[in-house]
């Protein structure tokens, strides 16, 4: 594809991920974020909705911030398949020339966004935590945590369009629905036929576990390297259960195999906003803290008084997790026995 004339490009698009006709929460978060960015650019927000029997969802997307919805409703796009979805989005984008394309950094979005961007020969910026518009240049300025400790990078895509970015679920705040909003619903003809698709989905198995439990938890107990080993995480889970909290982890213990990946909180994991966060042996590097900084109260337990987490904690305990947690559990049990005896 030849380079596009930057001045011809106008508009902000949001890819809407949906399952069984229900939008992914991250897509609604991005409609809200997109609305704010589009207002700065003085352009429209277009939602791109793909799937089978999904047209009923379109009006709702207007309420969440879209000015128009492009609807590709067809049996061939019932299951998400990279190439079919990428074909539709890239063809529409090549014709309509949006400036910005926002995609949720779910498994689907992280599979789709780079493919669409490569097709359009444009940049793709993964896992952004802040997005803004530089008014003078109309550039999207994407910020994300960068490699080393507490480094943030500002990344731009100056000469290619659309500027494609992905954002993890929970990073952007969900704005309120505005049910008075009006917009245009535009059906799109899906040209691809099943026999031309190179990939088949032969089975889909959904696990029963509630994947969103951690992200929506009221209390979260998080283990870092200071937990020491897999046994330490078992003890931490007991503590979390006693507290009525969900268990999370930083990335290193997960890499060590001490705890499963779905517990990961941070830039490449989940973003949490609980009322109470208790970090146990967590150092507080930005890769993790980017995913928990909006917690209402942060408690940190760490042997190292210089650990970065004490810069963001409300309460700190300098001590070994494997001594402090059992002490906390003893105290909680003692109090509960005391309550029962009364």
């Amino acid at each position, binding site marked *: 594809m030849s380079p596009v004339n930057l001045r011809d490009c106008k508009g902000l698009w949001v890819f809407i991920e949906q399952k069984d006709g229900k939008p992914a929460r991250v897509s609604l978060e991005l409609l809200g974020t997109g609305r704010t960015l589009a207002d700065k650019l003085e352009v429209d927000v277009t939602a791109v909705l793909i799937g089978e029997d999904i047209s009923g969802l379109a009006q709702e997307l207007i309420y969440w911030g879209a000015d128009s919805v492009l609807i590709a409703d067809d049996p061939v796009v019932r299951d998400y398949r*990279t*190439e079919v979805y*990428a074909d539709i989005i890239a063809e529409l984008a090549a014709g309509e020339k949006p400036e910005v394309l926002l995609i949720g950094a779910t*498994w689907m979005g*992280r*599979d789709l966004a*780079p*493919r669409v*961007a*490569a*097709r359009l*020969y*444009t*940049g*793709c910026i*993964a*896992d952004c935590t802040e997005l803004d518009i530089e008014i003078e240049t109309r550039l999207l300025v994407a910020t994300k945590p*960068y*490699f*080393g*400790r*507490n*480094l*943030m*990078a*500002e*990344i*731009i*895509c100056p000469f290619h369009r659309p500027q494609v970015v992905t954002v993890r679920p929970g990073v952007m705040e969900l704005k309120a629905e505005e049910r008075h909003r009006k917009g245009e619903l535009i059906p799109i003809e899906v040209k691809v036929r099943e026999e031309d698709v*190179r*990939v*088949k*989905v*032969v*089975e*889909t*198995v*959904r*696990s029963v576990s509630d*994947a969103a439990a951690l992200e929506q938890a009221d209390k979260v107990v998080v283990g870092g390297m200071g937990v020491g080993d897999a046994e330490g995480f078992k003890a931490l889970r007991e503590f979390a259960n006693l*507290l009525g909290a969900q268990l999370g982890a930083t990335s290193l213990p997960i890499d060590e195999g001490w705890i499963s990946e779905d517990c990961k909180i941070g830039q*490449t994991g989940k973003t949490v906003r609980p009322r*109470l966060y208790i970090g146990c042996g967590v150092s507080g590097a*930005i890769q993790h*803290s980017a995913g928990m900084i909006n917690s209402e*109260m942060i408690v940190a337990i760490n042997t190292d008084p210089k650990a970065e987490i004490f810069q*963001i904690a*409300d*309460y*700190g*305990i*300098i001590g*070994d997790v494997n*001594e*402090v947690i*059992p*002490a*906390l559990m003893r*105290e*909680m049990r003692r109090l509960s026995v005391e309550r029962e005896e009364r």
Partner: protein
Amino acid sequence: MDIIVCIKQVPETTEIGWDPATGTLIRGGVPGVLNPSDKHALEAALQLRERYGAQITALSMGPLHAEETLREALSMGVDGAILLSDTAFAGADTLSTAYALSLAVRRIGRFDLILCGKESSDGMTAQVGPQLAELLNIPQLTYAIEIVVTNKTVRIKQKLEGGFRGVESLYPAVITVEKEMNQPRIPTMEGIMEAYASKEVQVWSAEDLGGKGGRLGLKGSPTQTRKVYTKELRRGKVTILEGEPDEVAVKLIQTLTAKGLL
């Protein structure tokens, strides 16, 4: 069958410098290691060879010292190794990297499967695999925890958030491998000796690859890192609870109870 495994040398630590003039990482002086995720891709290729028979080529792009990483792949047992190394490749973003890799894959010519790790431990974008698939115009099968090859199709078990899918495609295809798929083998002493004594790492330059020079390296990269800065995340001042574990436990529980958090 012919398998290409794309691998990357990554910095061993996260303490890494940044060049404000070019907006790229300064990798010099930081010890490099084979990207952990790529070890699973290599292991997957070796197991496919054991099951179906295959010729495996490891492919990497990086400075000359990335040869170490390819030697490690050879030690694990791959058959051939190619390093794309040229100042023209320096500063490449994911798309520019995928472009150079796509040229190399076309130059290699024979490929049924291209395996990549799910993501690198430094960039963590998981973009190069999908972009490479697009530039080669072949299917991409991501997040694989199992690979089964039949006559003309390849089927993977694809790990999703909250479940999995079985996905099948014609090959050639790009597959990105999750760490759950396998336990990478440790190179044997014999394997290491062989990797250094009798196996070769070919080095290809930008000129060897041909293609459009304007799409390589920093100047072929649509994304630019404009600024890197330290962000001190700070909230209010921390209150340290002091004392022996039993004392601090009492203090913390009292505090949380008083705030209505228990």
